[in-house]
C-alpha cells in the first residue's frame, strides 16, 4: 500500500510543472485526498493515473470545464 501511494504521489508530483501558489483553488489538496484515501482510493488513483498517461502521450485532451466528461 505504501509503495502504491508512493508511486501515485510521485506521478502526481512529476506530472505538472511548478505553479504559483497564490492562484491555487485547492487543486493540490484535492489530489492529496486520493493519495491518502487508502484502499478506497486504489481504483480512483489507477483511473486518474491512466488518464494522465493518455494525456501525456496525446491520446486525450485535458478536461477544461466542470461538466465535460472524460
Amino acid at each position, binding site marked *: 500500500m505504501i509503495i502504491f501511494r508512493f508511486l501515485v*504521489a510521485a506521478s*502526481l*508530483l512529476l*506530472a*505538472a*510543472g*511548478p*505553479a*504559483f*501558489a*497564490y*492562484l*491555487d483553488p*485547492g*487543486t*493540490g*489538496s*484535492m*489530489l*492529496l*485526498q*486520493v*493519495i*491518502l*484515501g*487508502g*484502499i*478506497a*482510493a486504489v*481504483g*480512483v*488513483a489507477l*483511473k*486518474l493515473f491512466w*488518464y494522465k498517461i493518455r494525456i501525456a502521450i496525446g491520446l486525450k485532451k*485535458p*478536461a*477544461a*470545464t*466542470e*461538466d*465535460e*466528461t*472524460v
Partner: protein
Amino acid sequence: MQAFEVEAGSFRDRDGRIYTSGDRIIRGVSARALEEFGKLQATRFYGQFLESGRLVQSRLLAAEEVPLSADIQEQWAGFIEHSRIPVVSYPYEWTFGMLRDAAILQLDLVEAAILEGLTLKDATPYNVQFVDGRPVFIDIPSFETLPAGAPWSGYRQFCEMFLFPLMLQAYKGIHFQPLLRSSIDGIAIQTAEKLFGFRDRFRKGVFPHVWLQGKLTNRYGASSQNVRSELKSAGFNKELILANVRKMRKLVLKLNWRGDGSEWGSYEEFHNYSESDHLLKESFVGECVAASGAQRVWDIGCNTGQFSKISSANAASVVAMDLDHFAVERLYREIRAEGIKGILTLVQNVADPSPNWGWRNSERTELRVRARPDLVLGLALIHHVVISANIPLEEFISWLAETSDQLIIEYVSRSDDKVEALLRNKEDKYTDYSRQNLENSLQRHFRIERQLSLESGNRFLYWCCKPGSVV
C-alpha cells in the same frame, strides 16, 4: 419593531446574513440555503446532534413572525432564528483542548453528513462556539448536498485552521493563538511547510498533510486542468471522503499537549498566603458577587479558576481568562470533566486584548463588544498589569471603569514577596504603584462599597460600584 443590526462578521456566505437585536439572532437565507436547510432537518443526525447540544437550536420563522424591516425581508427567501450563544469567542482565544474538541466536532459533523448525502462546504473554527465547556456548531448554512464525485471541499481549510495550529502546539510547543490572531484564514500550507522542519516530517501527519500537500499545492496551484472533473470521472466517491475524515479524526485525537514551562499552571498549590487568608478572600468574593446581582462576570487573571467557580454560583455567565495558556487549558479540562456549567475559558492578555480586526476592522471584535460584563474580578492581577506589563495604574482602572459598572479588585502591596520578585531585577520606576494611589483612582471612577484587609497585611480587597449602578 426592535432595531436589528447586521452582524459584521457574517458577510462571506452569499447565501445568508445574520441580524441581531438584544437576545435574538436571525439569519436571512437565500432560496438555495432554505432548500438545503429543509434537507438538513430531514436527516437523522440533525436531531441527534441537536439533542446532544452539539448543533445550535434553529427554527424556521413563519412570515408573520419575522421582526425585520420590509426591505430586509425582501432580500431573503426565508428566516431562521438561532438560540443565542452567551459569549461569542474566537479560536485565537481558545486553548489547545478547545481547538481540538472543535476539530473533532467538525469531523464528526462531516462524517455524519456524508453518510446521509450532505456535506459541509467549509471547515472553519469560527463556525464553532463554546457553551458550558462544550463545542457547539452554529453555522447551519454550511450544510449542503454533496455533489456526485466531489472531494472533501473543506479539507484544506481544515488543515490551515485546525490541524496545523494543533500540530504546531503538540509537536513544537508553539502557541497557535498569536498565529490565528494575525491571519484570519489560519496558517497557510506554504507557511506550515516552513514552520515544520525536516525532522518534523517523521511526526504523525506532518509528511502527508504539510509536506506532500505543500508540494502538490505548488505543482497544481495554477494548473489549467479541471482536477475536480478529472476526479469525478476517475470515480471519486464518498467512501474516499469518509476514509480521509476518519483518518483525520484519529490523527487529531492523538495530538496532545502537556504544557511545559507554564508559569501559573499550579499557582494555587503554592500561593504565598495563609489558609485563613485564602478562606477570607473566598468568602469576601462570594458574598460580594452575590450582593452585586451581576449576571455576567469576567474573571481576569483567573489562574486555576477558583474564583470563577465561586462567581458562577450566582452569575449566569462567567468568562475566565488568563494569559497563561496552560492554566486556562487545565481549567477547561476540569470544566469538561466535571460538567461545570456557565464558565467560558479564554486565553487573553488584558494588556494586549483581542482587537477589532478582519474586513473593515469589524469582522472580529474585541471581547467587550461581544459581551459586556456587569462585574469584573481582578484578583492578584494589578501588580502584573502595572509592574510587568507597564500599564499605569490610573490607565488600568479607567479601562476597567469603561468596561464594567462593578469591580472586585485586590491590591498586592510592595512588601508581598510576589511583588518583590517582580521588582527584583527591575528599576523601580513604578511610583504610581501604591495602595493610596489605587484607592484614589478607584474613588475617581467608582464608589468603594466594601473592603477587606487580609491578615497578612499585604493584600487588600475592594468591591467597587459606579455611582448609579444597581446594588
